[in-house]
C-alpha cells in the first residue's frame, strides 16, 4: 500500500540556496535556514573562495562535490542518498553550473529528486502574493525580475553588477586599511566594516555631502581595530556614503533606481501600478540600514524627471517579509518544499539518468510524478 509522503518521516527535503557569497541551507517546512555559511570550499587543501568563478568543468565538479559534502555531513547530518533536494537559484545562473550541480547531486550523491526553484518566484511565497517586482541585491549582482501571477516575466529582467561587492570596493579604495598580515583578508575586513559601521544615508544628506559641504548633524567617526592591534579611523562621511554607489547612474544612466523604473515603463500598462505597489527587496545588501527608505526617495525623485513623468505612478510600496532579507528566497523554497507541488515538479534520479538532461524550467513535461 502506498503511504502518503506527508506521514513518512524519512522523506526529508533539503533546501539549498547557493549564493555567490553566502549559502543558506536547511530543511523544507522549517521557518529559517539551519545555517548561513560562506560559499567556499577546499580542493586538496587549496581554498576556493568563489565557486561561481570556477570556469573549467573539472574544478567546478570537485568544488561542488566538496561543498555539497560539507553541507550534508557537517550541517545537515543526513546522507544525501534518496533525499529530495530543492535548489533555490537565480534564473540567471549559468547553465553549466546547473548541469554540473545536477550531475553531482544525482550521480555522486544519489539524491532521489531535485527541483530548481527560481529565487524570484519563491520569494513571493513568503508574502502570500503572486505578483510583484522582485529585486535581489546580493553580493555580486542586483537582479530584477517582475513576477506576474507566479510567472517570472523574463522579457523584463534587469541585472547590474551593483551589490555588496561594489560597496566593499568603495571601502577598499576610500579607506586606507594599510598593510595586512598574511592571515588577514582585505575582503573580510571590508565586509566587516560595511556590515558593522556603515549605513545608507538619506537622499538629502547624500546630495549635500556630494557637493563637499558639511551636514548637520555630522556623523560620528568610528575607531576600527584590525586584529586587535592597529586601529584605523573610519570617517562619518564614508560611513554614510559608501552605499551611494548603488544609486549613482552609470554612463548608460542606469542604477538600481532606474532598473526598477525601466522595468515598470517597459511592462504592460495594466500591470505598471501593480508592480510599483508590490516591490519586494531580497538579498543581504538590502539589509543595510536605511536602504529601503533611500530607494523609495530615489524612486520618487527620479519619477519627476522627464523620462519617467508620464508614468502614471505617484507612489511606491514595499513589502516586508516575515524573515530577514538575506534568506527570503530560501524561506520561499522551504514553503514550496512543504507542498505537494514539490513532488509534481521535481526531476527524479531515474528521469535524469534516462534523459541525461536537466530541464531549464521546473515542468511536469518530461517526468513522472514521484511516488
Amino acid at each position, binding site marked *: 500500500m502506498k503511504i*502518503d509522503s506527508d506521514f513518512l518521516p524519512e522523506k526529508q527535503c533539503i533546501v539549498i540556496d547557493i549564493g555567490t557569497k553566502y549559502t543558506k541551507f536547511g530543511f523544507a517546512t522549517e521557518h529559517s535556514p539551519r545555517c548561513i555559511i560562506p560559499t567556499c570550499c577546499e580542493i586538496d587543501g587549496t581554498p576556493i573562495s568563489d565557486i561561481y568563478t570556477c570556469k573549467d568543468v573539472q574544478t567546478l565538479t*570537485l568544488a561542488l562535490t566538496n561543498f555539497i559534502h560539507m553541507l550534508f*555531513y557537517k550541517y545537515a*547530518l543526513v546522507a544525501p542518498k534518496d533525499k529530495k533536494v530543492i535548489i533555490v537559484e537565480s534564473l540567471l545562473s549559468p547553465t553549466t553550473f546547473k548541469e554540473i550541480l545536477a550531475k553531482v547531486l544525482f550521480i*555522486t550523491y544519489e539524491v532521489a529528486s531535485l527541483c530548481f526553484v527560481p529565487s524570484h518566484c519563491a520569494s513571493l511565497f513568503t*508574502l502570500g*502574493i503572486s505578483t510583484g517586482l522582485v529585486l535581489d541585491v546580493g553580493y555580486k549582482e542586483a537582479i530584477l525580475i517582475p513576477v506576474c501571477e507566479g510567472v517570472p516575466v523574463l522579457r523584463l529582467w534587469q541585472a547590474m553588477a551593483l551589490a555588496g561587492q561594489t560597496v566593499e570596493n568603495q571601502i577598499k579604495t576610500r579607506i586606507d586599511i594599510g598593510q595586512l598580515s598574511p592571515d588577514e583578508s582585505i575582503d573580510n575586513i571590508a565586509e566587516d566594516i560595511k556590515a558593522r559601521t556603515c549605513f545608507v544615508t538619506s537622499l538629502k544628506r547624500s546630495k549635500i555631502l556630494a557637493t563637499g559641504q558639511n551636514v548637520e548633524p555630522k556623523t560620528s567617526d*568610528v575607531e576600527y581595530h584590525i586584529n586587535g592591534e592597529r586601529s584605523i579611523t573610519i570617517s562619518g562621511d564614508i560611513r554614510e556614503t559608501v552605499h551611494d554607489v548603488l544609486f549613482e547612474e552609470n554612463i548608460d544612466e542606469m542604477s538600481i533606481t532606474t532598473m526598477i523604473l525601466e522595468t515598470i515603463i517597459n511592462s504592460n500598462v495594466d500591470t505598471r501600478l501593480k508592480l510599483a505597489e508590490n516591490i519586494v527587496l531580497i538579498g543581504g545588501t538590502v539589509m543595510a540600514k536605511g536602504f529601503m527608505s533611500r530607494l523609495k526617495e530615489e524612486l520618487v525623485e527620479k519619477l519627476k524627471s522627464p523620462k519617467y513623468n508620464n508614468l502614471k505612478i505617484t507612489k511606491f510600496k514595499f513589502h*516586508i517579509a516575515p*524573515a530577514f532579507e538575506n534568506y527570503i528566497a530560501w524561506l520561499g523554497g522551504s514553503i514550496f518544499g512543504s507542498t505537494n507541488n514539490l513532488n509534481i515538479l521535481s526531476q527524479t534520479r531515474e528521469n535524469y539518468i534516462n534523459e541525461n538532461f536537466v530541464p531549464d524550467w521546473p515542468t511536469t513535461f518530461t517526468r513522472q510524478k514521484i511516488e
Partner: protein
Amino acid sequence: MASYMFQKTITSICTCGLQKLLPDLFFCRHCLTLRCDFCVSHEIDTTYCPHCFENLSSTEAKHKKNRCASCLECPRCFNTLSTRSYSRTPEPKKPPQKMYYLLCLFCNWRSHEPSIPDQPTSSGNWPVNKNPNDGRILDLINHYKSVSLKEVFDKQKRNTKHYGRNYMHFLEKFGLNAMMARKRAGLPNFHSDGTGFSTSEISPAEAIENVPELPINIFEDIVDLKQVSTLEQRFATPELQAENTDDLFPIRKHLRVKHSLRCRVCEHNVVKPEYNAVKFKIKHLAYYHVPEIKIIKCEPLVAGKWSSLILKLCNPAQISTAVRFEKLDLNTINIIREPRRLEGEDLIATPKQLPEPIPIVLELHGDIMVPEGEIKIAARDDTAEYDDTNEVNTDNDDPKYVYWRKGNKVALKFEVKPSENLKKNENLQLGFVMHFMYMDTMLHVINQKQPQTVLVPINILLNLPNSL
C-alpha cells in the same frame, strides 16, 4: 611528527584520478584498488556531540535539530560555555539559594549580560529563542499546502469523470492514508465531491508606503564596535540575526557524525566505526596494505644528468610481499582504471551510474630508471626489532638495486635525470608504477578457496624539491 605525512613529496594517484597521500587512501579489498575520500560513498553511522560525546540516534538528532541538549556555545566566540554558580540570599532569614549562569572562559561573555535570567538549576532551562514570525510562516505553509492539494483534487475530479464513480480507484489515487490520518488527527474529512474542500485562507501581505526610516540618532551616536555583532555572529542564529551583542543568545552545540565509508563500485565497506567507541570494525586503509615509500637520500639534481635516488619501502602487512616497478606511461594512464577482481569473487553488476573518473593530467620533468625484477619485502614482525639475530636473506638481491634491507624495510636505488629545460625552483615531478603483491586472506563465505595473490599496480608521483 605528523607533518612529514602531509608533505606532498610522494603522492599516489587514486583510482578516481586524484593525487593523494598514502595515509589519506583506502584500499578496497574487493575491487583491489585504491579509493579516496572522493570516490567512496559516505554514510552516517552515529551522531554525537563533540563536547560531551553523547551518542544520539538519528531520529533523536533530527528532533533536536542536530543540536546537543546540554552543551552550549558562546554566541560571541563560539567556544563552549561553562556553568558557574553563586549563592544568593533572597531574604535575610532564608537559607541562601544557589543560582547559575553561563560563562565563556575565552572571551568572558556571561549569560546574565543580555536578557537571560540566572537559573536555579545547573542544567538550566536556558531559554530557547523563538522566531517571532513563526505564526505567519505556518499560515503561509498551510495555505500553500492546501492550494496544492486542491489542485490535485481538482485534477482527480476531472479524471474520475471518465471512470465513473469508482470509489476505490479514487481513494487509491488520492491517498487513502491522507484521509485516515486526518481522521485520526480529528480533522474534518475532505468531501468526496470536493465542494467542502476549502483552502486555508490567508491575507496576502500588504505592501507599505511608509517604509522604516533611518533612526534619527544614527548619525551622532558613537558606535561602540564591541556592541555591534559581526556577520558571523548574526548568521549563527539565522532567525534572529541580532545586531547588538547584548541580544545574542547561547547557541546549542552542533552535533557531528561518524562516517562509515563504502566503496561505490562493489558496495563493500572500507571503513566502519564501532558504535560508542573510538574504534573501528572495519578499517581498510591503504596504509595497512600498500608498502610505504619514503625518500632517504637523493644526490643533488643536475639538469640532464643522472643522479641516484634512494627510496625506502616499508611493508606494513603481516604477510611478505614483493614489488615490481615500471615506468609511468602517460599515454595509457587514463585508459584502464577500474581494475579486476579476485578470481571467483561474485561480480556485482553495477546498475547504477558512477561518477566519472577524473582525467589525469600530468607533466613529467625528466626520466627515471627503476629497479628491475621482483623485489621481495619481508612481512612486518613487531618482535623483530628486539631480535638481533633476525637475518634477512639477501642472497637473491641484486646489489645494483638493493641498497640495504632490514626487517620489513628495503632501500632501493633509483636513478633520476631531470630534463634539460627544468626551471630553477620548480619541483621535479617524476612518476613510476609500483606493482605490489597483495595476498587476499579474507574468508570467502561462498566459495572456500586458497588465498590468492594479485599484483596491484599503483601510480606513484615524486615531487622532488629542486634547488639547482
